[in-house]
C-alpha cells in the first residue's frame, strides 16, 4: 500500500464505520446507545488530551474545563443564536448545519481559552503545571456556576438532541486522522522533541513555546467539540458534570492506552467506558460489585503505574513487531 495514501484510507474507513454505526443506531436500546455514544465522546477527549500529555509531555489536569467551555458554547449557539440565524431547524436537514456551527463555535471559544492556559505552561512543568491546569478547571466551573444566565449550578436544560452516532464517530475519525498526520509530519516532530528533551530541542532551534501553545490550542479545540457533542446528546449540562474527576477519567484513559499511542488511547477510552458499566451488574459472594467497582478502578491505576508505567500499549512499535515477524519467516526458509 502506498505510504501517502494509507492515512486517507484509514480516514475513509473511519467515515464508513461512522455511517455503519448510524444505520445500526435505531435498532438498539437507549442504554446501549448511550454507552456507544459515551465511548465515541471519550475517544475524542482522550485523543485530544493525548496530543497535550502524550505527544508534547505537558501534564494537564484540566481537560474537563475545556470540555465544559465547548459544551456551554455549543449549547448557547444552538439554543440562542441559531434560531435567529437559521430559523426553526429541529427535525430538518438544517439541524446538522446548526450542530456543526455550534460545535465549531464551542471549539473555537475553547481554543481561545486554551491559549490562556498554554501561556503558564511556558514557565511551569511537571506537577506545577498539573496543579495550575487543575486550578484552571476548577475556576471555570466556579465561574459558570455563578453566572445566572448560564443556569448557575442547575446548568442548561432542554438542549436539542442533535448529536447522532454519525457525528460522533465522524469526528473521532477526523481527530485521529488530524493528530496522526500532524505528529507524523516533519513539523509535528517538534511536539515529540519538546516532550523528550525541552532544553535540547530549544538548543536545536525548535520553537518550544509555539509547540506547547499549539498543543494546548488544538487539544482544547477538540475537547470543546467533544463537550458540544455531549451537551447535544445529554440534553442537559451542569457545571458538576465537568469536575476534577472527569479530567482524571480522561487522564487515566491516556495513561492506560500509553502516552503518545493514538490507537492505544482509543482502545483504552472504549475499555474504560465499557468496563464500569459491565461491572455494574456483577456480583461476587453476594456482594454487589457496583459499590466497590470504583475502588478497584483506582487500585488498577496504582498497580498499572507500579508495573507498567508506559501504559498497556505504550512503547510498542507495531510496525517493528510486524517486521520482526516477517524476518523470522524469511529466516526459516
Amino acid at each position, binding site marked *: 500500500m502506498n505510504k501517502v495514501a494509507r492515512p486517507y484510507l484509514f480516514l475513509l474507513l473511519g467515515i464508513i464505520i461512522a455511517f455503519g454505526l448510524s444505520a445500526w443506531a435505531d435498532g438498539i436500546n437507549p442504554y446501549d446507545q448511550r454507552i456507544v455514544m459515551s465511548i465515541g465522546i471519550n475517544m475524542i477527549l482522550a485523543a485530544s488530551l493525548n496530543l497535550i500529555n502524550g505527544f508534547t509531555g505537558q*501534564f494537564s489536569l484540566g481537560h474537563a474545563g475545556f470540555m465544559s467551555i465547548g459544551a456551554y458554547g455549543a449549547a448557547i449557539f444552538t439554543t440562542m443564536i441559531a434560531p435567529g440565524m437559521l430559523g426553526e431547524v429541529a427535525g430538518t436537514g438544517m439541524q446538522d448545519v446548526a450542530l456543526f456551527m455550534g460545535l465549531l463555535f464551542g471549539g473555537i471559544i475553547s481554543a481561545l481559552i486554551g491559549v490562556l492556559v498554554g*501561556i*503558564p505552561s511556558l*514557565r*511551569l512543568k*511537571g*506537577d*506545577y503545571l*498539573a*496543579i*495550575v491546569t*487543575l*486550578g*484552571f478547571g*476548577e*475556576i471555570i466551573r*466556579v*465561574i459558570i*456556576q*455563578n453566572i445566572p444566565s448560564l443556569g448557575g449550578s442547575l446548568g442548561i436544560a432542554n438542549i436539542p438532541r442533535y448529536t447522532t452516532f454519525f457525528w460522533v464517530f465522524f469526528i473521532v475519525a477526523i481527530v485521529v486522522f488530524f493528530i496522526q498526520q500532524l505528529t507524523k509530519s516533519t513539523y509535528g516532530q517538534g511536539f515529540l522533541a519538546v516532550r523528550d528533551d525541552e*532544553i535540547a530541542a530549544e538548543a536545536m532551534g525548535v520553537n518550544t513555546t509555539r509547540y506547547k501553545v499549539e498543543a494546548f490550542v488544538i487539544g482544547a479545540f477538540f475537547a470543546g467539540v467533544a463537550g458540544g457533542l455531549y451537551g447535544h446528546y445529554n440534553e442537559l449540562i451542569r457545571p458538576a458534570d465537568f469536575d*476534577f474527576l472527569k479530567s*482524571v477519567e480522561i*487522564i487515566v484513559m491516556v*495513561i492506560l492506552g500509553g502516552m503518545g499511542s493514538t490507537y492505544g488511547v482509543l482502545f483504552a477510552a472504549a475499555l474504560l467506558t465499557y468496563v464500569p458499566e459491565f461491572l455494574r451488574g456483577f456480583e461476587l459472594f453476594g456482594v454487589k460489585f457496583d*459499590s*466497590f467497582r*470504583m*475502588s478497584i*478502578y*483506582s*487500585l488498577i*491505576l*496504582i498497580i498499572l*503505574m*507500579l508495573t507498567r*508505567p508506559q501504559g498497556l500499549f505504550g512503547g510498542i512499535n507495531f510496525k517493528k513487531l510486524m517486521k520482526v515477524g516477517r524476518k523470522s519467516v524469511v529466516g526459516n526458509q
Partner: protein
Amino acid sequence: MEEFLQQVINGLSLGAIYALIALGYTMIYGVLRFINFAHGDVFMVGAYIGFFIYPLLSESLGTGYLTAFAVLLAAMLGCGLLGVTIEFLAYRPLRNRPKLTVLITAIGVSLFLEYTGQIDFVFGADYKTYPTLVERSAVFSGSGLSLGSDQVIVFVVAIVLMLLLRVLVMKTKIGIAMRALSMNLSAASLMGINTNRVISFTFFIGSALAGAGATLYAMSYPKINPLMGVLPGLKAFVAAVLGGIGNIPGAVFGSFFIGTAETMTAGYISPTFRDAIVFGILILILIFKPSGLLGKGGVEKV
C-alpha cells in the same frame, strides 16, 4: 472595622488548620520533590478516625479535654501510620522513576481512599456528624467581635505543634537528616544517612500533622464525608506553593494568607467565590513567582 477584625480572626483560625496540612505537603516535597496528592485524603481519614474512636474513648475517659486530647493523638497516630504505609506500598517502588509516574500513582492513591471511603461498610458516602469534643463557648465577645473556644483551641494546638516541628527539624538528629535529604538526596545517602528511614519518618510526621488538622477542622466544621479532604487539601497545597514549597515557615505564612483571603472573599464579595479566589492566587503566584514568596528560585542545569 469590627467586621474586618472578625474576618481576620476567622481567617487566621482557618489558616492555622491549613497550615497543619500544608506542612505535610511541604515536608514531603522537601525530601522527595513530589506532590503527595493523597495528602488531603489522609486528612479525611484522620477525621473518620476521630469519629469512630470517640465513642470508645469517651466510655472510659468520660467527656472533656482529656478525651479530646486522646482523640487528637489517635488521629495523629492513625494518619501517621497510614502515611508510612502509603509511602512504603505505592511510592517507594517508584523511587527512581519519572516524576509523572509518581504523580499519577499519587492521584490513584487519592482516588482509592476516596472511593473506598464511600463504600457502605467502610465510611459510607453520606455525611456524618463529628462528635462535639469540647463544648463550644464564647471566650470573648462584645463590640461586634467574638472568639469561640474552638478557635482558641485551634490556635493553641496548631502553634504548639508548629513549635514542636520547628524543634524537631532544627535541633534533633533526624531533623538534620531530613534537611540534608532536602538539599541533596544522593549526597545524603553517601554520608551514611538511611534515606528510606528518613523518608518514612517524614511521611509519618507530615501525615500526623494532617491528622491533627483533621481533628481541628472537624471540630469547627462537624459535617464529615469521604470527599471532605479534597478542597482543604488543595487549598493547603496552594498555601504551600504560595510560601515556597519545601519551605516550612513559608507554608505557615502561606496558610494564614490563604485562610484570611478566603474568609475575606466570603465575607465581602460572595461566599461562592471562596474556592475560586484560592486558585486565582495560585495561578497568579505561579505565573509571576513560581518559587513562592519565601522560596529560593533555582536554575535548571542541563
